[in-house]
């Protein structure tokens, strides 16, 4: 059975360590295996490791490896490959480096045991290994791909278009941005465990969304990952197509630069309206999240009150409760903050990154307009958006965040801690709170999990009180498959095709 699989964008490279990018990993998961992985229900499952635990030394994790596994080229999988792969992933060219930054050393205890040493206790280490794929050392040596592709320098190495993994599928051909063909690996270690019903996979990226929908309707593809939300209705009505829906590990929200003395794009001189909490609250309650859900998202989203999805440790329904939309109160708040006539600001937005991102921004533009804030909208490609965002040049911006380690610390670390070279990498709001920083920084090494949860809860309290971000919604994931396919949505948006079955 051949599966024709399509998504909006292609995998960036087949080199598994080069890029930390969702769709790239999604493809790699079919070819390579990590030690542990998240299954279709986002539960952690043994991959190339069969068991793992912290050793007596809290700084050392022990992983027992699966036996009898071979790579696609027939060579056996051993602990040496794991050691090699960690080293490779820690190379400067690797985008995976931050995920294992705490790892100091990986050691092969025997052929099927490895020890991972960290600088300090790392209770959640396995969570970071979900997408850390294991490559064959000998193959890498043979093909001179000991180091990951230097993506930003445009380097190409053998691993970019060739692959030798332990995964359920084996690469046949790869034409980037056009077509990637895989066949079933009949020597797969899990061939009795999983359905493994597909014999061949043809993977095609299709950029234009109507074309994507059309291709599915016309039966040219069997499985579509990025279903345009507006087409869901029609697709579910079509009798040869089935919709698969589930929550996605991604939350969409707006950030405001609160740290500067003066905004770059505002008419207000000498002060920063966003620095005033009343302004942020006014904006928070001006946004009609229900309307966005109903109209822009066609119901395919969950209105959000916090910036982490429900899978995340630290999430509570109370925190996530959506504030009541109240235009009048918002106006009052603005007036009391000293902006009875509102102010002007530019909202910068992507138009190709999140589901209906530009439409969401447009809608918010209108809603803020209703309380007197004159929002100019600038929608652009995500590469530009993120480049500028990372240079901290934006006053008011959209951002979506997913939390692969499923822990609040990931959110705190990137989005909320005070921006320093080591922390707050994506905190472009200029927000800084000492108490919060202290709480957040204590988390990684906190081994008492209850105490840890309490700290997380307190940290969230501060964040919600301060209204650092304006949450919009949690995305809902929609996949479409041919009628006779049996599959479920994975909230990481990484389909594990080995689970797919035909009726």
């Amino acid at each position, binding site marked *: 059975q051949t599966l024709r699989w399509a998504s909006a964008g292609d995998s960036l490279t087949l080199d598994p360590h080069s890029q930390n990018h969702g769709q790239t990993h999604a493809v790699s998961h079919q070819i390579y295996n990590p030690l542990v992985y998240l299954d279709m229900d986002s539960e952690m499952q043994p991959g190339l490791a069969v068991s793992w635990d912290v050793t007596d030394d809290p700084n050392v994790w022990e992983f027992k490896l699966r036996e009898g596994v071979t790579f696609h080229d027939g060579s056996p999988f051993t602990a040496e490959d794991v050691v090699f792969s960690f080293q490779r992933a820690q190379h400067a060219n690797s985008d995976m480096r931050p995920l294992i930054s705490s790892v100091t050393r990986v050691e092969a205890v025997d052929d099927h045991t490895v020890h991972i040493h960290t600088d300090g206790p790392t209770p959640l280490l396995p969570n970071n290994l979900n997408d850390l794929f294991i490559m064959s050392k000998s193959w890498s040596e043979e093909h001179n791909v000991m180091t990951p592709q230097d993506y930003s320098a445009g380097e190409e190495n053998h691993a970019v278009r060739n692959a030798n993994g332990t995964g359920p599928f084996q690469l046949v051909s790869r034409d980037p941005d056009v077509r990637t063909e895989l066949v079933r690996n009949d020597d797969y270690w899990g061939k009795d465990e999983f359905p493994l019903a597909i014999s061949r996979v043809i993977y095609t990226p299709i950029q234009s969304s109507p074309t994507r929908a059309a291709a599915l*309707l016309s039966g040219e593809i069997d499985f579509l990952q990025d279903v*345009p939300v507006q087409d869901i209705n029609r697709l579910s009505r079509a009798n040869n197509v089935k919709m698969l829906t589930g929550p996605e590990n991604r939350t969409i929200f707006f950030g405001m630069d609160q740290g500067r003395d003066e905004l770059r794009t505002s008419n207000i001189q000498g002060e920063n309206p966003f620095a005033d909490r009343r302004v942020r609250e006014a904006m928070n309650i001006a946004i009609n999240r229900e309307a966005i859900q109903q*109209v822009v998202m066609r119901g395919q989203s969950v209105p959000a009150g916090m910036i982490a999805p429900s899978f995340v440790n630290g999430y509570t329904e109370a925190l996530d409760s959506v504030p009541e939309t109240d235009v009048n109160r918002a106006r009052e708040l603005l007036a009391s903050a000293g902006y009875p006539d509102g102010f002007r600001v*530019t909202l910068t937005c992507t138009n190709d990154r999140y589901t209906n991102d530009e439409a969401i921004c*447009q809608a918010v533009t209108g809603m803020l*307009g209703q309380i007197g804030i004159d929002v*100019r909208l600038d929608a652009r490609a995500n590469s530009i958006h993120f480049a500028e965002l990372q240079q901290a040049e934006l006053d008011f911006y959209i951002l979506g965040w997913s939390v692969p380690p499923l822990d609040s610390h990931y959110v705190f670390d990137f989005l909320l801690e005070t921006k320093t070279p080591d922390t707050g990498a994506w905190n472009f709001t200029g927000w800084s709170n000492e108490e919060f920083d202290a709480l957040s920084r204590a988390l990684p090494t906190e081994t008492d999990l209850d105490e840890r949860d309490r700290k997380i809860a307190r940290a969230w309290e501060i964040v919600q009180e301060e209204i650092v971000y304006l949450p919009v919604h949690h995305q809902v994931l929609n996949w479409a498959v041919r009628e006779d396919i049996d599959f479920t949505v994975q909230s990481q948006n990484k389909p594990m095709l080995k689970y797919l079955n035909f009726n």
Partner: protein
Amino acid sequence: MTKTTTSSQDPYQVEPWWQRILNSDLFYDFSRRPVVVLSAVMTLLIISASMLAPWIAPHTPFDPASLNLMDGFTPPMEPNAFTGNVYWLGTDSQGRDIFSAILYGARVSLLVGFAAVGFAAILGITLGLIAGYKGGWIDTVIMRIADVQLSFPAILIALLIFGITKSLIPRELQEQAAVYVLILSIGLSDWVQYARTVRSSTLAEKNKEYVQAARLFGVTWPRILLRHILPNVMGPVLVIGTIGLALAIILESTLSFLGVGVPATQPSLGTLIRVGNEYLFSGEWWITIFPGLTLLVLALSVNLLGDWLRDALNPRLR
């Protein structure tokens, strides 16, 4: 055969200008072609409707604050599921009344079209006149530039200029600047045609004896160009201009479709189609079909007019 007066009339009687127009061959030919008349009517209708948009449009689609998101995706002539509002041609994803959006969108499209054509025409005519009249190295330089320019299809030039200006203009100005950037990029990609046509007509005209006669009276060359030659080369310019208008409108919509045109908050017809295009397969056909039809009717009418004008102004086809 302009004179149609019968012998009983005073042969020296001079007709007022409107009489001249009504009696002209052009108008006669025009009035005999229902399709052309229809397209003129349609063009005028769309132009005047879009000019009067602020007064006749039931909503102001360019003011985001006035939109109610809950009105989004209302089908034509059907009440909205949430708000119960009824819209003539339905609403788009933001709850914008399509009818108003078309009026305002046509306004943007026409503004860009007219301004771009005007810009291209003025630039092209000026350069063409000078190149043709002065000749020599000025001519060579201008025409070589035109050749280089001609090596690039309009769309590429427009895309390029758009790309460059976009990264040069400060962000807060971009939304307003988009329209001007479009005008600039379409206009710049289009002047060559005018320059070439005007140049070749000028070459022909400048050797006509009436130009030499004017020189005899000591008329300076800019004045000769302006008063003598220009009126005589306007015929073909008018034709290119008309067809160019249709092309500019289409180019604008194409650029907007490719996502490099006017922003979605001030949609032109092209932007409306682009936005609506996403909803075509999902059943919200009206978002793209109505603006698409308007664009088609507009471009078709203008094209028909241009087509007719070309034949009508070509003496050899008469």
